[in-house]
């Protein structure tokens, strides 16, 4: 799975007594729902990301392609409104833009990203246990239309990530919503929702409704 070897030690550090789920254990239904989400590798999906940044007076809308091809590589390619390729491997992030020097930095410098990656990869592996180690889990909805809520257990991660909400239909996740503790947030629409047409300055509420649809 995505960056499996990389993320495991992070997870175990987040919850030392990993195997035994002490409190806020996920319900059997939640576990079952997560296990259904498992996907074969490699996988590619188009995506649309909407980022709400406090420093900016309008959200950023990026479209492109996500690929998780092997156990230690996640690729994110932006095609619009500009070109950019991000590779995350071995704890290093590498960002390439045409005509600019490559930017490299350690994943550790972006804790919020670590939180997202952890939830993303564990979800696509259908690994409820691993997910439960780092997050308190809860779920709503039915098999047709569902929503998973992930709240970080570890204080260090909670300092950066308030919560992650994953929603989808049947066995396919369609939205990843990351709320950062500083107030910024980002919505990642994948799979069937990836090509949804959006207004120039979409509202967060409207996007959340799109994700949760019938809920």
């Amino acid at each position, binding site marked *: 799975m995505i960056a499996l070897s*990389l993320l495991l030690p992070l997870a175990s550090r987040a919850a030392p007594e990993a195997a035994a789920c002490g409190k806020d254990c996920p319900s059997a239904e939640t576990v079952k729902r997560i296990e259904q989400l498992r996907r074969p590798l490699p996988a590619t999906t188009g995506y649309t990301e909407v980022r709400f940044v406090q420093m900016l007076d309008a959200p950023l809308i990026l479209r492109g392609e996500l690929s998780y091809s092997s156990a230690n590589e996640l690729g994110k390619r932006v095609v619009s409104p500009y070109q950019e390729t991000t590779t995350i491997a071995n704890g290093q992030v590498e960002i390439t833009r045409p005509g600019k020097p490559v930017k490299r930095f350690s994943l550790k410098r972006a804790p919020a990203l670590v939180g997202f990656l952890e939830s993303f990869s564990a979800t696509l592996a259908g690994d409820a246990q691993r997910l439960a180690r780092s997050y308190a889990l809860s779920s709503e909805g039915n098999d047709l239309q569902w929503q998973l809520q992930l709240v970080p257990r570890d204080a260090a991660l909670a300092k950066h990530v308030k919560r992650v909400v994953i929603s989808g239909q049947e066995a396919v996740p369609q939205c990843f919503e990351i709320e950062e503790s500083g107030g910024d947030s980002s919505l990642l629409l994948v799979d069937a929702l990836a090509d949804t047409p959006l207004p120039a300055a979409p509202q967060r509420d409207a996007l959340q409704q799109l994700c949760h649809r019938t809920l």
Partner: protein
Amino acid sequence: MSPRTRLALLLGWLALLAGLLAYVLGTLRVSTDLRSFMPPARTPEQRLLLDEIGEGPGSRLLLLALDGEEPDVLADLSKALVQKIRADQRFVRALNGEGDLGALAEDLLPYRYLLSTTLDSQRLDTATLRDELQQRVQDLGSPAAAWLKPLLASDPTLETLKLAQAWAPPGEPERYADVWFTRDGETALLLAETVAGGFDPAAQRAAQEALSSYFHEAAKETNAKITLSGPGVFTVRINATTSDEASRIGLFDSIGFVALLLLAYRRVTTVLAGALPLLSGGLAGMAALALLFGGAHGITLAFGFTLIGVAQDYPIHLFSHLRRERTPVAVAGLLWPTLATGVASTCIAYLAFFASGVDGLEQLAVFTIVGLATAALTTRFGLAHLLGSQPHDAAQSAWLAALWRWLAKLPRPRWLAPLLAMTAIGAMIWAPGAFWENNLAALTPAPADLVAQDTRLRAELGAPDVRYLLVIEASTADAVLAASEKLEPRLVQLQRDGAIGGYELPSRYLPSAATQRLRQSQLPDAATLRNALASAQQGLPFKPGSFDSFLRDVDAARGLPPLSAERYFASPLGLRLRAQLQARDGHWIGLVNLSGVADREALVRFAAAPDTTARLLDLKHASESLVAAYRTRVLYSLAVASVLLVAVVSMALRRRSRVLRVLLPMAVTTLLILAVLRLCGVSLSLFHLIALVLAAGLGLDYALFFEHVEDDEQEQRLTLHAILVCSASTFFVFLLLALSSLPVLRAIGTTVTLGVAFNFVLALLFTRPRQEIVGAR
């Protein structure tokens, strides 16, 4: 003397020795830093080597490699290890690649515009700012957002990151999980710089043991292994193998020596008592060092014990001359004039070393003089009283009598001495190869596998070269920095040409005041910058007022005095600059580390160019010139010592023919040893010289005793017996050293072994009075 008084004397003597031992153990500090054994520096190169660099920054670097586990485990170990090392006083710094960003101290932040090279080629105008701000929007949309967001408001052009990048070690290795790894990703890499010089075995061993224990503590539950490399590791390893081999040989030596004495004297108590004078001499010598110097260098002690080894012969002379009809004290009294002449002349000769002006040699003189005198006096006034009256009488043995008669008949041509001397001198002149060995390391070579491993790790880590260094000297810190800046473009060229792999200039951390002022003058005033920023922001989604702290910082930077070296030293990065920029009695020096030196010639040409503001320091050459200077001092001392020796012997023996007979074997032997060594292609080192001195001392004693024989045939046989035992035991002891695999032990061993053989034979042939042979016929 009654057995009871003898026992009391023995116990008193042992108690005295125990007291001396306690004093020595309590007060004598043994230093192992090679620098304290060296003479004062004469050339600027040597001064740099000794005072300012301490054998080069490269020599203090330990390279650490961790492997045998999953990369994640290794990365965690690397982080834990660095924490421990940083908390340890024995280390200057520890690097593993993590935590190098954002190192500029909070109060120095506005200085970023004066430290970064950005303003050398750009201005903070609308075009630049617009390009930067567009990139920042993209940054906010990328995974880098979480990392960069806290910086943006005050630093939209990301100068702090550019500085962090510029300050990262040159030729940095790959990273995994934030820490350095080899390219294959199997081995985590770290660098640790010790406070102690690389050639100080004791301090290096302590530092390396601390490293190992930190590692083993951290890696208890893993299969990870640690590998250490670097000059300090070589030093410790060489020191250990040398002392291991020396003590192994020492053990065999002792067994053989005792067996030989038992064979010669047939009394266990006699043999045991015979160890007392040498033991007393050694302890008294060390106590004298503790009293006069407070400490001694390890090499002084090693050389010193070699030199006073001659004192083991004193009890042997006494034992061999024992007879049933004379008390031991009477025998000692008869021998004393001869023994005293030998000891006194040797001791007076060593006074020459005391005047050499080199600490190590002065210590050597004190140790040897006190040691030899004590051994001789205790033999005469202690050991003689300790012996019983029922000795083994060597004069009665039949084989000795037969040997004596055979030797007495040997022909002894007068032309032999000049012939041997001329031949030896000729051989020395015509022998191939270098006469002197200046590279001390050649005597203690590092194991090939360690060297190969070091080369590999050094390449992976881009660690600085151990041998070459550029040195900038100027009257102020700022002048050093300015010179360093002038070097930069030319070093870039040198690197492009492939002559060097990389370089590290002091101006990389702190530009000169002039450069800082130039950059300062490029900063726009508050109103201009505000306008430029406003037009750059047009059409970009940044909220108004987003970059107010940026405007404030730039305005502050315009009014700052240039950042000085003193202020920089006080910041968290100060240590790094201090390693490359140092004040020394009224002037400043800057060190430029070089790595991956591939073309030495190009480097030498570069340093010789008239516009080069730095000097190339070849540490190997500097240390070799120091060794050569050292040897010159030793040779001068030896010349003075020989003159003193001749004078003392002449005064004691009066007649010219007697003086000649005593000194001739010793002199010819010295020439012969040199000739044989040179013919075997051996280049001579300090160790050979010291061993030559020992051989000469032995030769003097043999000759004095042979010269002193009385007309009584019994007495003559006893003297022969004594010198046979002396030379056989010394020959055996040093023969084992000569067979050692270690060049340093071999150097001492071969020289002394040859010396004993030549001295014995030549003393027989040259020294004994001629008329006595006539009588034998």
